[in-house]
């Protein structure tokens, strides 16, 4: 089963670091002042998506 993964919209990300601080997988790093999610580490929990204050993180891909 392939799960959708969390992805950052770099145009919206304001680099607050909130998603990084709550990611249990340590899957998010700040690269050039934008949060960047490592798809291989992401377990599709969605916590970062809910946490983002500006709605810059979204699901990519469908459940298949």
């Amino acid at each position, binding site marked *: 089963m392939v799960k959708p993964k969390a992805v950052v919209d770099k145009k919206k990300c304001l680099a607050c670091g*909130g998603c990084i601080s709550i990611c249990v997988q340590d899957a998010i790093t700040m690269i050039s*002042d934008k949060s960047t999610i490592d798809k291989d580490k992401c377990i599709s929990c969605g916590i970062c998506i*809910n*946490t983002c*204050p500006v709605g810059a993180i979204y699901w990519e891909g469908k459940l298949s």
Partner: protein
Amino acid sequence: MKYDVVVVGSGPAGTVTARFAAEAGAKVLIIERRQEIGVPVLCGEGISKKVDDYNVLKGKRWIANNMDGARIFSPDGTKVTLDADMAGNETGYVLYRDIFDQELARGAVSAGAKIMLNTCALDLIKEKNKIKGVKARYFDEDIEIEADVVVGADGVESKVGRWAGIKTVLKPKDLETCAQYTLTGVDVNRAYCDFYLGKKIAPGGYVWVFPKSKDVANVGIGILASLSSPGLATKLLDKFIDSHPELKKGEPIRFLAGAVPVSEPYEAVMDNLILIGDAARQVDPITGGGLIACLDAGRIAGEVLGKAVEKQNFSSDILKEYENRAAASFYKKMKRNYAVKEIMLGFEDKTLNMLADSLKDVKFDEISTLELIKALVLRHPSLMIKLRPLMKAAKR
């Protein structure tokens, strides 16, 4: 490159630590991944007048506005006014936080610390599990900075702590997710910092209006991450501004997002490493304010680092003095306020309205605890039951 202390992060926690460590004789380097200290501003910019006691800032350029106090608005709009002495961490001055941070950095440099900008920490240097410094990228060049102690002052998302093996991940219920506009052309009372409470206004947090002048204000929101949905902080903030004509007529000159740990303090020391500031969760869990804690903890950490250099002993046994003294200074209040935060999260809007109604005419500059309880109970006897856990927490 070999230093006694390398500080990762040039916010107040980092630069104040660097300053006092350098004053105590340590050879200190601060690294900062961005190209300018203090920018972008990620802060509501309120600070208590206690800042004056620390003598770490020159001049007054960092002050935007000198406050008389704070006003708290309950969900139905009932107003409780607090004088600056009573309002705790968040009122006193409204800052220009970029200038504030740069002034603190100037203090560190005057004491002998070095600064490298555009230098992003990538990992710790470890030899046989012993921390020996940091690996970093300076522009696009990979470098190694050797140091006897690494100070993680790298904010809420602290990577230094994670690299060292400390479990720094925050639970969503222990993180406030924030958004803020700086609005110009607004019409505000420049004497007061305002706080708005309510589950519909800001679940698990509050909206703040901090005036920088009579027509410029920081208008921001913090909500608990566990109660958030995608982009909710910004949506609720926009809704709040739309429903306040005195703010709605303004235009934004700055927009920012932020994240604030609202948790209990935790392990911040190991051999050759300390964490400080947001990285060590040194934030008041009720207000989300952390600047005074940075100044306090930074001074302590700097002094302890100076002693460690003198003794050439960088083990946790020596560095632990930092944690012990920070605990004595403000951890107790943090723990108590964490308990209060948990209790207040359970309050319905109705309870907050009753509380505000009981307190609205109370003069907070001359009140004792007993009078406070009398005022509460006389008006709304049922509050007594709701407040019992709070009284218990306060006695701790």
